[in-house]
């Protein structure tokens, strides 16, 4: 039973004595307090209800005073009856009209939501455009497959070569915030940081990614080393 039903029972002479209502009072302090507040009025309006029934007292027939009068009907009362019938008939139609209006509103809301979603998706920056792939072949997948390449130097070379592509044009922070689909690895530098520690040497391994020894890329890579974490003190890389 909810509080709404409890109020219905509370204001009903028979319902106010029901066990279900008493049970509800045990679990609902708000309704219990309401009942205590209204008790004087409820008691006053419902006490000795049957004895107070006018019809029981006067019987089924009109009183002697009323019986002596002729039944009357006025134009005004007839008009009241007509108006009441019209209004009630109109209100009986309301639920159907309300359902139709509600369906229309829901359709409108759905259209607005879909349009908003499309606009939001169009504002999400494309990941591919922020991190252009190098002209050469990416060795990440290949290195993962070949266990023989997993020496410290190789890993460093691999990571630094990845950095050429993936941090050369870091995405602005505010662009990321507009995206609905934020990457867990939003800061690319963090996961690259260990590979720029001092114990790793410069990229001079011939097994490094194809084309990474080109001077332009190495210059870019050195610039990245400085930008990612200057305290790491990454060594100058030479061709």
């Amino acid at each position, binding site marked *: 039973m909810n509080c*709404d039903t409890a*109020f*219905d029972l509370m*204001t009903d*002479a028979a319902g106010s004595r029901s066990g279900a209502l008493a049970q509800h009072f045990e679990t609902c302090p708000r309704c219990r307090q309401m009942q205590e*507040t*209204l*008790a*004087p*009025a*409820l008691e*006053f*309006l*419902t*006490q*000795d209800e049957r*004895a*107070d*029934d*006018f*019809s*029981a*007292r*006067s*019987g*089924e027939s*009109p*009183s*002697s*005073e*009323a019986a002596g*009068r002729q*039944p*009357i*009907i*006025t134009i*005004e*009362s*007839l008009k*009241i*009856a*007509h108006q*009441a*019938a*019209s*209004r*009630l*008939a109109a*209100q*009986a*139609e309301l639920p159907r009209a309300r359902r139709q209006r509600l369906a229309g509103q829901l359709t409108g809301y759905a259209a607005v939501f879909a349009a908003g979603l499309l606009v939001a998706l169009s504002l999400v920056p494309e990941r591919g455009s922020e991190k252009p792939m190098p002209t050469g072949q990416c060795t990440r997948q290949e290195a993962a497959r070949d266990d023989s390449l997993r020496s410290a130097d190789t890993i460093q070379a691999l990571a630094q070569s990845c950095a050429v592509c993936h941090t050369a044009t870091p995405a602005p922070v505010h662009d990321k915030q507009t995206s609905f689909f934020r990457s867990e690895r939003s800061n690319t530098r963090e996961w690259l940081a260990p590979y720029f520690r001092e114990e790793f040497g410069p990229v001079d391994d011939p097994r490094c990614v194809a084309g990474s020894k080109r001077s332009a890329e190495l210059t870019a890579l050195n610039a990245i080393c400085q930008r990612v974490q200057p305290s790491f003190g990454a060594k100058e890389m030479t061709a």
Partner: protein
Amino acid sequence: MDLDDVQIMCRVQAGQVELFDVLVRRYRGPLLNVAWSKLADAAWAEDVVQETFLAAFAARATYNPRFAFRTWVWTILLNLCRRQWQRRQVRPGEHSLGTSLSAELTGYCEPVTHETALGHILQIERREQVHQLLTHLPEVQADALRLRFFGGLQFSEIALAMDSSVSAAKQRVKNGLVALADYVRQNGGDFP
């Protein structure tokens, strides 16, 4: 055969006008209770209830099974009571609760013993108290309470009869009860 209101009204519309008497017997008591509470005059209450049924019968062609007959007669009654009350305001003192109820007692058919006479005096007194208390409330709250407690209407029916929403009908009953309870507490059962 126990016909419901819609079936009876459809037959009345079709020409079996004598069936309308069933509806009169069905609703006369609750209508009288509310009318008497609102007008504080038994004779006027009977007049209004009689006029309500006559109006409903005369306008039977406008009845539509899409709405409930009882809601219709309650709506008519409330409007006629309001009209009657306005007339009474124009001509105050024509009727008073005490005198009309004393007259009413003379038409009572049970044998009058000390017990029943005392009981009726108490009833009249209490009826007068209820009437006095309800006059302290705004009319819409008092009407909502009358329909709920004396007419036995559901909140949805009160809403239709008073042309309001169901939640508004509940709120009116609730506010009326709160105000009435405050008044009873403050006066400790002593009413004007």
